């Protein structure tokens, strides 16, 4: 069966520090992968999606970047965090019937 994991679950970082959130999927190959940010009252904002290794599409200009170094690995990064980067980040992969499967989420607090 397919599983998706993301870590760390919780992260507290100072302003200006780097960020790396990792997401891995098991049990499937060449999945479409997604990074979302969930904020109260603003729903699920799509940040990045990837249809294959090295293929990243960005939906919102921001201080973040994403990479897909391996088929089932999706990384969300920042070189210098801003206060506004605080939030709940979700990774997801798209199943064969179009359903999204979400990870557990990563809560980022920038101080």
């Amino acid at each position: 069966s397919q599983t998706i994991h993301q870590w760390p679950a919780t992260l507290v970082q100072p302003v200006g520090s780097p960020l790396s959130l990792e997401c891995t999927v098991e049990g499937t190959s060449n999945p479409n992968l997604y990074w979302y940010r969930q904020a109260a009252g603003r729903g699920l904002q799509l940040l990045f999606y990837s249809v294959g290794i090295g293929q990243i599409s960005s939906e919102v200009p921001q201080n973040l970047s994403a990479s897909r170094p391996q088929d089932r690995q999706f990384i969300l990064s920042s070189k210098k965090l801003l206060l506004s980067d605080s939030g709940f980040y979700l990774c997801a992969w798209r199943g064969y019937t179009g359903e999204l499967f979400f990870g557990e989420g990563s809560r980022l607090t920038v101080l």
Partner: protein
Amino acid sequence: AQSVSQHNHHVILSEAASLELGCNYSYGGTVNLFWYVQYPGQHLQLLLKYFSGDPLVKGIKGFEAEFIKSKFSFNLRKPSVQWSDTAEYFCAPPRDYKLSFGAGTTVTVRA
């Protein structure tokens, strides 16, 4: 960019009341439509989906949704809610996930 809008941000109901959450999308082609739910402390998960055929689709836990093509709507309904239906509900962008979700609707059911 968003191609889906949800009308209600917070709905408060009593048990046994009926629930209807509105979702409208702005896409004129073939659509695949989904509703997701996030129960407190849990992952986002699929509630129901529509691909084609009968425009009235059934989902988990007694939920249903009706696709009305002429109105570009995919409203979610449940005839009689329970306390356990307290959750956040998201209408997904049509056809693909290369866009952000709607803002979500928080449903609070009072016992």
